[in-house]
């Protein structure tokens, strides 16, 4: 960090005191459609902020284009509303230049997986310490209702009047395939779960990838209702908890067992299987994370929600810093004047 930057960030330091969610709300009117799932995500994010222990002025939210990408305007902290798909790349440059900052990216299924897919996968493999919140509503909202890379095959939209013939991305599998170190899924209509996951994501050292199911009540209403609504949720969702067997159902009477490498649902009621036979979640097991994420679009399996993987791997920006440090120790702090006069030179009198 240059001395000018150091001076600037020391300039107004004063104890902040205990903040509340309200301190993280900017003075801008929130302009999402009434009933949009984004409101809940904004509220949960603002709610967990005071507990993170990160000074507000050191946090930056970066976004691209789409409904989700208006997010930074509503957070009372530094922010950049960038261009379509590039939030992850902007955030990467910012984090490399300023490893001291807490950098968050807000993106959507279109912004992050379609136009910005390339930057996302490269961020994940590099593992910069950046928190990525991907709002997945399986539709293009801001452009008024075209199918997205996560829309189900056959989806009828304005741009697919005969039904979409695209096969959808499974964001969790994509992230795992990109060697992400933290991959999670949560839902707009489960505030408690979302808060837990967001806090874990914030605490992870490395890129945190959080897919958030988000209801677009205008263009794709109810896309996730089987997983988010009271009457259907428990039979359709299995919550992943580290060290615990995969049990689900209203009566907690069903579980997931591995048959070879294939997960299958078994009943815990008929005495044939008990909790001991079930798959036990381990957040640190890469292979298992692939199997769990792959359950996502399987019709006979519940939808996995929670933290698929949480691993430790060196962060890119720190490695960069280490190389610079090591070079300085070995060669001494660079001297421009010396460099200009180095090598083969000659004098003309």
């Amino acid at each position: 960090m240059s001395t000018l930057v150091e001076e600037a960030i020391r300039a107004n330091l004063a104890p902040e005191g205990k903040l509340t969610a309200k301190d993280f709300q900017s003075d801008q009117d929130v302009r999402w459609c009434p009933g949009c799932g984004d409101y809940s995500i904004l509220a949960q994010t603002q709610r967990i902020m005071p507990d993170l222990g990160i000074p507000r002025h050191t946090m930056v939210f970066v976004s691209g284009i789409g409904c989700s990408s208006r997010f930074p305007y509503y957070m009372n902290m530094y922010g950049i509303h960038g261009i379509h798909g590039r939030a992850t790349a902007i955030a990467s440059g910012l984090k490399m230049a300023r490893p001291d900052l807490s950098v968050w990216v807000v993106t959507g299924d279109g912004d992050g997986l379609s136009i910005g897919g390339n930057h996302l996968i490269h961020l994940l493999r590099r593992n910069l310490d950046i928190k990525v919140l991907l709002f997945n509503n399986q539709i293009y909202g801001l452009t008024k209702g075209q199918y997205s890379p996560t829309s189900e095959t056959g989806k009828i939209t304005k741009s697919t009047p005969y039904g979409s013939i695209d096969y959808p991305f499974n964001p969790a599998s994509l992230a795992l395939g990109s060697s992400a170190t933290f991959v999670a899924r949560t839902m707009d209509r489960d505030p408690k779960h979302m808060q837990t996951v967001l806090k874990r994501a914030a605490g992870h050292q490395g890129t945190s990838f959080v897919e958030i199911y988000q209801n677009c009540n205008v263009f794709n209403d109810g896309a996730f209702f089987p997983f988010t609504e009271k009457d259907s949720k428990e039979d359709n969702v299995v919550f992943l908890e580290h060290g615990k067997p995969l049990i689900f159902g209203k009566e907690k009477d069903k579980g997931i067992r591995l048959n070879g490498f294939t997960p299958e649902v078994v009943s815990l009621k008929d005495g044939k299987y008990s909790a001991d036979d079930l798959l036990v979640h381990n957040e640190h097991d890469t292979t298992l994370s692939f199997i769990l994420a792959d359950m996502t679009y399987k019709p006979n399996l519940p939808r996995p929600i929670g933290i698929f993987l949480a691993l430790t791997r060196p962060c890119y920006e720190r490695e960069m810093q280490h190389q610079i440090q090591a070079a300085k120790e070995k060669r001494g702090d660079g001297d421009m004047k010396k460099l200009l006069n180095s090598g083969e030179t000659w004098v003309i009198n």
Partner: protein
Amino acid sequence: MSAKTTQKLDEVTIRFAGDSGDGMQLTGTQFTNTTALLGNDLSTLPDYPAEIRAPQGTLFGVSGFQIHFGSREIHTPGDQCDVLVAMNAAALKVNLGSLVDGGAIIANTEGFNDKNLKLAGYTANPLKDRSLGKYQVYEVDISKLTALALQDMNLSSKIVDRSKNFFALGMMYWMYDRPVDSTLEWIQKKFANKPEIMEANTRVLKAGWNYGETTEIFTVRYLVGPAKLAPGKYRNITGNEATAWGLMAAARKANLDLFLGSYPITPASDILHELSIYKHFGVKTFQAEDEIAGVTSALGASFGGALGVTTTSGPGIALKTEALGLATMVELPLVVCNIQRGGPSTGLPTKTEQADLLQALYGRNGEAPIPVLAASTPADCFETVFEACRIAIKFMTPVIFLSDGYLGNGSEPWLIPDYDKMPDISPTFRTNPEGFLPYLRDEVTLSRPWAIPGTAGLEHRIGGLEKQHLTGNVSYDPQNHEMMIKLRADKVERIANDIPLAQVDGDAEGALIVAGWGSTYGAIRSAVSRIRDTGKKVSHVHLRYLNPLPKNLGEILYKFKNVLVPEINMGQLSKLLRAKYLVPTISLNKVQGLPFKAMEIENKIEEILKGSS
């Protein structure tokens, strides 16, 4: 020893040509460095194919390196070469057209065997059929002599073959009275871990020199004395090196960290390579996943208070265009280096062109003015890119720096600048929360405050949506939009108050002024000076600042009857000057992937002067 005579020359142009695997670029670079150390002025033109190892012996696989050096001022790599070193038949065929009548050909006879002749499309051996009658042909079996020099070393034929360029280099060192020492030192360093290759190259280089000294083929040795350059300490530098160092010097003088976000592309990659070396200077280089990530990461770094830079060539600029609009909107410093190459599309990756000027000036959606600067010589890249950084920081704006393949790969002696005397270009980060508004502008420059994350009390949001004046909040207000467009344009226009006026080389009025920009400098300068040698008057103005243009440019142009604009494009500056100043410019255009020959400009000047007298 046979009797050898010596002859003094003011200037010489040599072209080394061979297969792209023959090491011609290396040979040329070594000859250049040795020549620079002897105090000659010089200019070089590497000319190589896009394919890394094109099929051996073919015409399209020929790689060349031309050096023009002398005891007088040298501004171009030479219109024609006096000596052509041809390692094979294809090299001869491709380059014969650039050899001056009566010039010398040094031909590696092994490269003219039946297979090579066939590949080059010769039905008869040109060395034998008298078709080269107007040249002095020296036949040397370089391949065989190289093998003989190494016969007791038990090396693979591949290694032996790879050494033969040092034989050619050794001969040329002898012929032009240059010592082999600096190349020997280089060989020792370069091959420190490969003692066999070190020994082989050393032997072959010396063998080449001794061959010149002892055989009777060469009877004349040429002496080219040092040039009368301005006193001071010199080094040889390529445009891409100068660009990298200029960026580093600017970051240092701005007290900022340098961040480079870049994606490899010919002919700009060498800047990324060069900057990647200087970790101990704190330089952060990021090889991004694509061109867009290159520029957007740099912009993110600038938001964080670094000097964000991205380097690329034309196709890369096309991809970065949207991000340049964002940088214009968020008003952050950003330096974008375009090392131009032949276009459109993939075009001619390894050849030079100046055809991205209008793209730099106008190639964005919406009204998005960006300052544009262009370097005129390899060494000038240092000062010009430094100036681009200064403007970016002071005016909180993206700036485009234009260089091209000819400047980037070309080299010349450089009077090393006095680093202590270079200006401080530090920004003042905003820290005072009192009265802070993200788009409250400086009264003189109209630039907005640079408030970096981490500064308590200045939390704010910026973005690509239209900004409300002062607050920077999102605004769709029609009046505000027009005002902001005008403010952004006015800010860029005001840079004209901050840059030097254009200087005319020659009389302030007359029949003809040549107006140029970028890498045509050397050719124009040489052409103008040759015309003046004949007693005629002609002036020259060369533009470093393309946007905004110097305030006095109109007045300068109005005082001449004719304005000639030579460009390596179809007339882009010409169009600009016509639009802005309503002057009937005369275009001289060339788009062959090659720089102008001074002769071409000279002929055009003569033609105009004849017509208007």
